[in-house]
């Protein structure tokens, strides 16, 4: 069956360090992958999209990589700040019907 995995355990990072979150998938061949941020009590907010033919995408302190051979995307936040603390979700398209399939998210905690 199709599956997306994100670390279920919270990731604790010291302020100023780089946070790296992982999104692994099986039995998919997505055309693109999206990353969202979700704060408690709020809806997800779009951050970045990366296509299958792109290896890396950057936006300010954010960087996403996409390895279709490993079936994995890495999401990096450099120079992390306490305000970056949130849950980060990855989502992949289902090429057959264009619906997004979502990971359960990883909670990131940046400690001052």
């Amino acid at each position, binding site marked *: 069956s199709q599956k997306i995995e994100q670390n279920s355990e919270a990731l604790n990072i010291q302020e100023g360090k780089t946070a790296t979150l992982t999104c692994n998938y099986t039995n998919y061949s997505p055309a693109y992958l999206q990353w969202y941020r979700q704060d408690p009590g709020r809806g*997800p907010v779009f951050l970045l999209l990366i296509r299958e033919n792109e290896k890396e995408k950057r936006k300010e302190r954010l960087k996403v990589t996409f390895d279709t051979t490993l079936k994995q995307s890495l999401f990096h936040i450099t120079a992390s700040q306490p305000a970056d603390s949130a849950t980060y979700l990855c989502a992949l398209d289902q090429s057959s019907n*264009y619906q997004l399939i979502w990971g359960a998210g990883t909670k990131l905690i940046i400690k001052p």
Partner: protein
Amino acid sequence: DAGITQSPRYKITETGRQVTLMCHQTWSHSYMFWYRQDLGHGLRLIYYSAAADITDKGEVPDGYVVSRSKTENFPLTLESATRSQTSVYFCASSESLAGGLGSSYNEQFFGPGTRLTVL
């Protein structure tokens, strides 16, 4: 205010009652979605709509009904609420759907969510 809104934000109901969750967007986006979010699960798609009067089932449609008579509104109805439908419900909209290489894409914009408790 512009954006996507949901109402109510919180709802407590009893098993067997009908409940309608409202979703309104001001962008005139073609696509709208209803998801549920449960602890330990990713967002799961209930229903989506490509345009007014066009709706389709998602991953978990059983027990839910949707309609879309106007582009800006996409209400979700639980016909006879069950305890398993206790969840946080998110509405989202998108200008279009991505269709692979060479296709346009758009991110999904989410509402603030409705926390529904079925007793």
